[in-house]
């Protein structure tokens, strides 16, 4: 057909230079909408013809500008993200939608408004920290407010059919991602965690249709890979904070493990649940993004308002999804990783470890700070952990 890179090669190129494709699209007149975390509904951007572009930091680049406005005790991912904004590296964005993911996430939106002149459109969507019905109602109100602001920005209304079409496209993407993950159930997995991450990062940097096309190519390519017969590597699940760079996964995979599944937001969390269709789409968006999306930033209880203590029931209601992942992907160990200062993830660690203990799945917790330097001291711990599974 042509010489355009396909599949995994194409994904790697976009991973290495995320703005590659969106700059071309921008030159053609498309508007690029940046968003922070998974809470702003990408379906609304797609419906209006905007290209959703997830805002990350720049892994490994020392921060400088952000250090003038942030205290030392700030998650290094958000620090780097703000830093990139202050350095003007996101000035190509036509708009930004930030969200109340966590406290520093909110502050990041503030700083963006206060210190970074471009773009003009910076919206902050409030996301409740609980997932019960009143919270869903409130979040739906926030989404509808965002809808009005986005319509003004794009000078166009989001009609029901436009939204339905966008939801279908994004649900298709989720289905394709799950199909790709399905292939990793094989032992050995034909796709490494490192390669998978490159694809996931590419998806956050492309219009949904192009992402879907890329996914189809990747799935075909991975299906054609010949299976090695012998694989003594331990199959691990990686849980935790945002991984927009493969350095940690490489350390894990060089230490004798194969990352077969993850519970992270540039991975399964973004794609595991569809937006339900058939009912009110705004209810569906609110429910999917607040309830189905499993980030520790949301406080979950087995039953709200219940005084009775039932630790096991709480753990099960919060973490049972990890059990099915572990069973279906034949997981032999779990690596819980977190960026330093991420309170949300940090506080979930004891509960998750207890839960995994009850399942008989070994786990380890490691912290890092968005630099490769911080991986050196945990390299040996990860290796030792893998040795406890397979030596």
């Amino acid at each position, binding site marked *: 057909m042509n010489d355009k890179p396909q599949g995994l090669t194409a994904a790697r190129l976009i991973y290495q230079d995320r703005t590659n494709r969106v700059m071309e699209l921008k030159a053609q007149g498309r508007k690029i909408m940046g968003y922070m975390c998974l809470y702003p509904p990408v379906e609304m951007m797609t419906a209006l013809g905007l290209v959703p572009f997830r805002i990350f930091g720049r892994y490994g680049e020392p921060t400088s500008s952000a250090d003038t406005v942030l205290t030392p005790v700030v998650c290094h991912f958000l620090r780097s993200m703000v830093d990139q904004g202050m350095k003007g590296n996101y000035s190509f964005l036509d708009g930004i939608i930030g969200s109340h993911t966590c406290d520093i996430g909110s502050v990041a939106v503030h700083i963006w408004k206060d210190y970074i002149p471009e773009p003009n459109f910076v919206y902050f969507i409030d996301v409740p920290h609980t997932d019960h019905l009143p919270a869903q109602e409130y979040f739906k109100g926030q989404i509808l407010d965002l809808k009005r602001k986005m319509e003004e920005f794009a000078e166009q209304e989001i009609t029901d059919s436009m939204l339905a079409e966008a939801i279908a496209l994004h649900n298709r993407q989720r289905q394709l991602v799950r199909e790709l993950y399905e292939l990793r159930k094989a032992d050995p997995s034909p796709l490494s965690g490192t390669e998978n991450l490159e694809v996931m990062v590419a998806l956050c940097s492309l219009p949904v249709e192009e992402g879907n096309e890329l996914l189809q190519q990747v799935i075909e390519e991975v299906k054609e890979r010949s299976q090695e017969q012998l694989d003594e590597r331990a199959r691990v699940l990686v849980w935790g904070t945002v991984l927009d760079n493969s350095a940690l996964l490489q350390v894990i995979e060089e230490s004798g493990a194969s990352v077969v599944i993850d519970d992270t937001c540039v991975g399964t969390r973004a794609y595991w649940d569809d937006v339900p269709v058939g009912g009110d789409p705004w209810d569906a968006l609110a429910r999917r993004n607040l309830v189905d999306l499993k980030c520790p930033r949301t406080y979950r209880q087995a039953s709200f308002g219940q005084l009775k203590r039932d630790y096991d029931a709480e753990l099960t209601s919060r973490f049972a999804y990890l059990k099915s992942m572990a069973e279906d992907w034949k997981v032999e160990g779990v690596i819980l990783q977190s960026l330093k200062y991420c309170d949300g993830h940090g506080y979930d660690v004891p509960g998750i470890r207890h839960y995994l203990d009850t399942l008989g799945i070994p786990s380890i917790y490691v912290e890092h700070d968005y630099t490769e330097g911080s991986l050196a001291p945990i390299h040996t*711990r990860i290796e030792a952990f893998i040795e406890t599974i397979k030596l």
Partner: protein
Amino acid sequence: MSHNQTPLYFAGVDIGSTMSKVVIIDEEQNLRAAVIGPTGAEHRRRANEVMIEALGQVGIALESVAFIVATGYGRLNVPFAEQQVTEITCHARGVMTLFPEVTTIIDIGGQDAKALRIQNHKIVDFITNDKCAAGTGRFLEVIAETLDLPLYDMSQISLKSSRPLQITSICTIFAQQEVIRYLSEGAALSDVLAGMHDATAARVVRMAHRIGIQAPVVFTGGVALNPAMVRAMEDNLGCPVMVPSNPLITGALGAAAIARDKYHRLTAEGRIPAVSARRLEEIRLFEGGAKT
């Protein structure tokens, strides 16, 4: 097993941040050689030197060692090892060889401290200090240098204290300043030193509590040679600790035991490691020293 005329030897090489250790065992797991030397800056040459000395103790050539496992910080710099295994796994194995009943292992080395929980002869959880030097041998060295006291004297003076002072800083530099401030205020040296040992032990024990501490506890690493630290650990743990007669070599001993296992597993699978091919390469390295 007809070729089994010559005795089998297995070696463990532990290149730590401060010290390099080599242990050679035989088929019956008897300790045949144990050598300790400083690591210094030239990991590669140091590994060779310590190895040559250990081979000399047994009176064998390098080719007579059936399998070698390297461990420790410098494990990748041991060109003659067949396999690298982390010091965490090796320490556990070495200690279990000496104390089969062990449940908790606390190891304090030159620049790290670790705690391991053992169940049914397996590591079920472990924790290491991956942030700073407080609570490690290096901390004690810094204080010893500041006071211009040999480590041994520092330990002995400390044991004479009846009222240890409290050192509250967890940072090495701040703790050092606290020690100096106490001394400038006229506090007894023994009380200050006892407080310093206590603070070091308390820090490691706090870390170890995160994985759960259960007796029997074995205390290893270079710092376990310090009687004041042994006492401080027991005070902080609230139970006695067992210290191997040579607490520095448990990692190398474990590496040697793992080498023995590995050799037998590979032999059973018909995949005996090709020792001869590798030896030549590394004899050249011996002659050339640390040119690379």
